[in-house]
């Protein structure tokens, strides 16, 4: 049963559009799935390989702009951005990895944070190519209703899920975790840590980039502040994984579901909408102090906590 759980969930999701959900519900679902993809990719690099990135907006944005620039400069369908960004983001990750992967721990984290900001500033200032702060508007939208967008992101998510599952259970997965646990030990056991960290970064970057390219197609508008956002992309990505559970298969899904629903819920309360970052910040602090391994990773602990509260209340 447990083995087939991913397939069962996939099947249930696949029939959802048929039963006629509202456009808003479809939108939420698409967002949840898109964020799960980004969360999974971050989890591969951060959770399994131990390289905590504060700059996943860089990959998301480069992917989004790959699709956007294809449309605005080359007059091609932005859908070509999905396959093309595999190459573009992989190259970008290689260059970036060459610089940031020399660093360890918090310094890696900060260097990636800086890389995201550099990309945002570059996109803002390189007006000829990116359109600067005006952004890029896709005027010819492919579909009006959400169904096909839903299926496309669902397929991306399913492929990502199975690929990462395969990867984590393979030699590569062992190497990633070994690097996370102790880089010096890993290196002295014959693991080329630089190479494998670069591989993790590239795979993670490309997946996030694909999500970015999808975002361009789906939303129809991008600008540097949206796609290279520090808080609304990079930090939210970390939060999704932290809340869901670091280094767990299901963590990013649980995290994405909670974060997207929470964001929508807070936005819907009059007068509190602007405070969503305060809520996120407090949630992050609470999670780190009480459930450092997330809802999935600390599920037993969570059950205990809830149980205790019931017993005492």
């Amino acid at each position, binding site marked *: 049963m447990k083995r087939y759980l991913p397939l069962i969930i996939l099947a249930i999701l696949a029939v959802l559009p048929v039963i006629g959900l509202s456009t808003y519900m479809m939108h939420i679902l698409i967002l949840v799935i898109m964020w799960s993809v980004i969360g999974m990719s971050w989890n591969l690099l*951060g*959770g399994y390989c*131990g390289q*905590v990135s*504060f700059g996943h907006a860089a990959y998301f944005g480069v992917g989004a702009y790959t699709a956007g620039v294809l449309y605005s400069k080359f007059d091609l369908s932005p859908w070509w951005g999905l396959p093309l960004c595999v190459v573009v983001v992989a190259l970008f990750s290689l260059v970036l990895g060459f*610089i940031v992967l*020399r*660093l360890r*721990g*918090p*310094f890696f*984290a*900060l*260097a990636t*944070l*800086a*890389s995201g*900001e*550099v990309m945002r*500033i*570059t996109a*803002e*200032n390189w007006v000829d190519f990116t359109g600067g702060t005006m952004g890029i508007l896709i005027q010819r939208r492919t579909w009006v209703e959400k169904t096909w967008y839903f299926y496309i992101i669902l397929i991306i998510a399913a492929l990502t899920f199975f690929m990462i599952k395969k990867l984590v259970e393979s030699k590569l997965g062992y190497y990633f975790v070994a690097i*996370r646990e102790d880089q010096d030990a890993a290196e002295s056991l014959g693991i080329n840590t630089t190479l494998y960290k670069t591989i993790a970064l590239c795979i993670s970057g490309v997946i996030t980039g694909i999500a970015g390219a999808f975002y361009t197609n789906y939303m129809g508008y991008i600008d540097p502040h949206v796609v290279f956002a*520090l*808080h609304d992309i990079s*930090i939210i990505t*970390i939060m999704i994984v*932290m809340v869901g559970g*670091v*280094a767990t298969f299901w963590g990013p899904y649980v995290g994405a579901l909670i974060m997207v629903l929470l964001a929508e819920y807070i936005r819907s309360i009059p007068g509190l909408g*602007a*405070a*969503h*970052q*305060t809520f*996120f*910040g*407090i949630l*992050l*602090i609470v999670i*780190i*102090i009480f459930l*450092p*391994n997330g809802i999935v*990773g600390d599920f037993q602990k969570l059950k205990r906590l809830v149980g205790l509260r019931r017993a005492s209340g």
Partner: protein
Amino acid sequence: MTSVQIEVFLQTLIAGLLLGGLYALIGLGMTLIMGVMKIINLAHGELMMVAMYIAYWMFVLFHIDPYLSIFIATPILFLIGIALQKFLINPVLKVESILPENQVILTVGIGMVLANLATLFFKSDYRSTPVDYATNAFYLSDFWKTSPIELSLSVPWTVSFVFAVIITISLWFFLAKTDTGKSIRATAQDTDAALLMGVNVKLMRVVTFGIGAGLVGAAGCLFLPIYYLFPSLGGQFTLIAFVITILGGLGSTIGAIIGGLILGVFESMTATYVGMGWAPVGRFVIFVVCLIFLPGGVASILKRKRLGK
């Protein structure tokens, strides 16, 4: 070079040095915290923002000059820093988790809350503090009538710079001469040895976070007369502080001062010769070049000199 070009160059250099002096103060706070606790405080810029709002309201409500507010905002920030360390960061140091970066992520959370609360309370408006000396300046021709070139020195920039230098010197004195300062340095150098020598490491961590927050609070007051104030300005100053820390060498105070000056001059030059919008990119170019070619920062050069190698 024509005299105009020389003028522009010198003016840019001066502006860069003045900016660098203030940057150094921001970097000092972060480098101290990093040295003692080995964590990066990603809420550093947000703490500065908080100090700036304190000084701003002191000015608007009670007409207290921002420079006087140093004596109000710095102690408040010191207490805030102590509270953050004691009640949020210390508990996380004890929590078992997969990622050691949890502490860094925690400071991100703190920064998010601070920035967002500021937006809620004060709206995201850009505010400037209308001190009456805001546009005053010293001119070279006032002192030297026949000077072939003209240079100006903004009064608030100069005053801020002087304050920054005074605070930096006091900090150096504190670290070098007082018992608490020496204990902090011992903790930074070798926590285990410091523990064995009877240093109260736990207390030093709390005090250091307080001092770091206080320093950046003072820097906030110094920035207020010369800079716009808005709730989300923290992020960029956190990055600046971090770049300075890398540039100067982790945990090195002298390195942070030199790093701050280098960064100030470099940014000023980028703004003049490449374009205003690119100044932040210049910041990261320095950062990347430093990571690749000088991983130990300025401190590693100083160290080599001292050992005669």
